[in-house]
Structure formats: C-alpha cells, structure tokens
C-alpha cells in the first residue's frame, strides 16, 4: 500500500474515523444496557425497603422478585421535609419516574445526609441547639415514607442515615400504624470495623428492634443501643460488644431521623389511619 501513514491528512482521517466508530459503539452499548442497569439499582432499593417491613411475605425477598412485590405491597410513597410538610405524595399507580427528584423512591437519604446534614453538624460541632434549629428550618432535607398495606394493617417504612465510627451508616425501619412501634429494620454501613461495628447489618441485631417503641406516654423517646448485657426496657436494644462507637452512631442516627417521622405521625393522625 502506498499510503503515507505519517501524513497529517491520514492521521486526522484515522482519528476521525476512530472517534466516530468508538463513539457510536459506546453509545449503542450504553443505550442498550441502560434499562437493565437502572432496573438493578431500582430493584436493590426496593429489596431493602421490603426487607425492612418485617412481614413474612417480604422477608428474604430476592432482587429479582423485588420489583413485583414492591408494586404489590407498597401502596403509597410520600416525601416530607424536616418541618413535617408533605412535598410529594404518590400512589402505587404513579409510575416511578427517575426524573422526579421529590418522589419518595428517588430520595437518597445518604446523599441528603452528606449534602445538607453533615455540613451543618460539623460547622456547629458542640452546639446542639443550633444544629437542631438549623436542621428543622431547612427545607432541603427530605424524608421518604413508604406505606405498605397488608392484612388490613398499615406499615410505614421510614429511612435513616448518619455516621458510624468510620463512615456512613444507614437503614430502613418499619413503623406500625400506631406511629411508634417498630416492626422491622435493615441497617447497612460502608466501612465499620469487620467483626465489630459491621455486625449492625446482621439479622440478630436488626431483629432486636421488632416491637420496640419510640414513645413513652405520648412523648418522643428515642430508641437506643445499649451496652451489651444490660437489662433492657422497651426502647433499648443490646449493642455489639466492643463496638461502642458504632452504637453511638446508630443512636444519633435513630434519634435525629425518627424524631422527624414521629412528629409527622403525631401531627397527622389522619395519615396513619
């Protein structure tokens, strides 16, 4: 071949052709795989939410069946803000639209936490009152509620996130229709100590919350993780031996997040009916 490989024209032509081919190929691959990828992400989230309910039908749900079960059990998706105002309210008939950032399903509490809560907390470290004030006045922070109806009962799946010993921790809890009793929970973490803090995502830890309440005589009383081996009351669960700080993180997370939900349920009795 008499092609001059070093000529400018050849080089540019080669580059152009390559960019077109590569670009086209990538766009094609990306487009054709995108639905599956999105479904994966969606299903995993649904799986977590369903796991938290604590009813037999959804315990041990797999990712594959999560989509169908979610549609079956979750009848309503509500988003509230810190003040307890409803900012979005969808029913099972409303399709989940990834573009609707306010849809409860699209709220990522971990992101909300790192974007809005963390800066306020670290800037006002030590001044709890100010943190409380700033947080409750913030309308940026959204909280999702998923309503599940099953066997004539209503269950509310709420979400919580905070910081453990090393990194983020988060989870879903299911509240019974009385607005204060816990029916189930799932927790997860990004990097707690293996064998210690990482145990919060183990079933025995999660199951301890079943039946505990976050109120006493009509007043909010946060759930708390105690040192292992103590006598427990109705608001306390056994902590993990040696993982004091993860426990403290869980306590902080539960106290801060559940207070919002508790007040919401309290102030909107018609919602829980």
């Amino acid at each position: 071949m008499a092609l001059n490989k070093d000529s400018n024209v050849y080089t540019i032509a080669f580059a152009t052709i390559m960019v077109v081919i590569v670009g086209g190929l990538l766009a094609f691959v990306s487009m054709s795989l995108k639905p599956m990828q999105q479904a994966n992400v969606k299903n995993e989230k649904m799986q977590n939410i369903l796991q938290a309910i604590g009813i037999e039908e959804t315990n041990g749900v797999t990712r594959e069946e999560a989509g169908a079960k979610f549609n079956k059990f979750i009848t309503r998706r509500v988003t509230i803000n810190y003040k307890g105002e409803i900012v979005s309210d969808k029913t099972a008939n409303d399709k989940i639209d990834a573009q609707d950032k306010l849809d409860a399903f699209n709220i990522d509490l971990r992101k909300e936490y790192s974007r809005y809560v963390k800066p306020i907390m670290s800037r006002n470290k030590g001044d709890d009152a100010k943190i409380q004030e700033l947080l409750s006045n913030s309308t940026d922070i959204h909280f999702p509620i998923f309503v599940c109806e099953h066997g004539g009962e209503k269950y509310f799946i709420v979400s919580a996130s905070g910081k453990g010993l090393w990194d983020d921790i988060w989870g879903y809890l299911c509240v019974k229709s009385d607005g204060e009793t816990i029916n189930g929970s799932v927790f997860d973490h990004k990097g707690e100590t293996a064998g210690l803090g990482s145990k919060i995502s183990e079933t025995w830890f999660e199951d301890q919350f079943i039946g505990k309440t976050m109120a006493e005589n009509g007043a909010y009383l946060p759930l708390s993780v105690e040192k292992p081996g103590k006598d427990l009351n109705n608001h306390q669960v056994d902590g993990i031996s040696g993982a004091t700080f993860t426990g403290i993180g869980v306590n902080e997370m539960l106290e801060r997040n559940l207070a919002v939900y508790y007040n919401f349920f309290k102030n909107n009795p018609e919602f829980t009916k």
Partner: protein
Amino acid sequence: MEYINIFIKSAFIDNMIFTFFFGMCSYLAVSKTVKTAVGLGSAVIFVLVVTIPINYLLETLVLQEGALAWLGDDYANMDLSFLSFIMFIAVIASIVQLVEMLVEKFSPALYGALGIFLPLIAVNCAILGAALFMQQKQFANIGQATVYGLGSGFGWFLAIVLIAAIREKIKYSHIPAPLRGVGMAFILTGLMGLAFLGFLGFEL
C-alpha cells in the same frame, strides 16, 4: 473545618497508596532515592491539583446525569456518564501534555525538577483513580474537589518520600535474597500501611 477534614481524610485515611494502591507501579519503581521520590511526588501533587478541578467541572457541567440542563431543556435528560472514563483520561493526558509545555516554556527550573516525571504521570492510575473517586464522592463545590486533589496528592507524596527514605536506610540490612527489591518494597508498604491505620476514623 470541612476543608481540613477533606484534606486529612484524603491524605491520611484514604491514602492513595496504603488504602487503594493507586500508582503503585511508579511508586515502587521511583522510590529508590529520596531525591527522585520528591520529584515524582511533587509532580503528582501538581497534576492532581490541576486536573481534579477541571475534571470536576467536566463532571458537573457535561457528564453527570442532567448536567447538560444549562444547554436547554432538551438536553436536561441526557446522561453521558458512561463516557466519563474516556473523557477523564483524555483530559488528564492532554492537561499533562499542556502543563509540560507551559512549564518548559515559562519555568525551566521547575521543568528541570518535574519535567522527566510528567510523561510518567499520564498513565499513573493515581491521577485517574483520584478523578473517579472525586466523581463518586460528589463534592458540593469545586473548592472541596480541589482540596481533595491536593490532599490525595499530598498523601501520595508523603507515601513515596517515606518509603524512599526507608529504602535508603535498609540498604544496610541483610534482606533475604528472594525478597530484595520489589518483594521487600511490598512488605514495607504493608507495614507502613499498618502504621497509617492509626488515622482511620480521624476527624477534627
């Protein structure tokens, strides 16, 4: 405080070498003397501080889902994130090239110190790795991203300079023959990583 914490976290806790092994190839190859280690380490800091903010802008203005909204509503739903690998690496390669030329032209002294290391860096996974982590961490603003770049670079710099000093010291040691060179460097890095674990969970 926010910035300090980002810096500490990226430099000491999520140290690129001890936690993620980023840029290990050049870390192992260029850490035989402190002098060259300082050269390469500085070059990494330099390139990270330049490329991370640019990649941050690229990410938020072009690649992220919905990032193109500023072009008009039609583009608001575009998701180009699948292109991020190729775009980041392109940015890094061209910036390194550009920086090399600029430095050579305007600061021959700096070029003398960093020049030979710059071409090495385009394919140093520390740079791409930091860009990908920057994407994953979703910093709130460009300042945080830049501090992240600076911290990561500093962490890398520290790691390579420390191991270089140690390797100069252990020249006197009678290391078992099969471990001489690379093998020892691996174990050393592991031991240093063990010491650096003390930073885990550090927060001011």
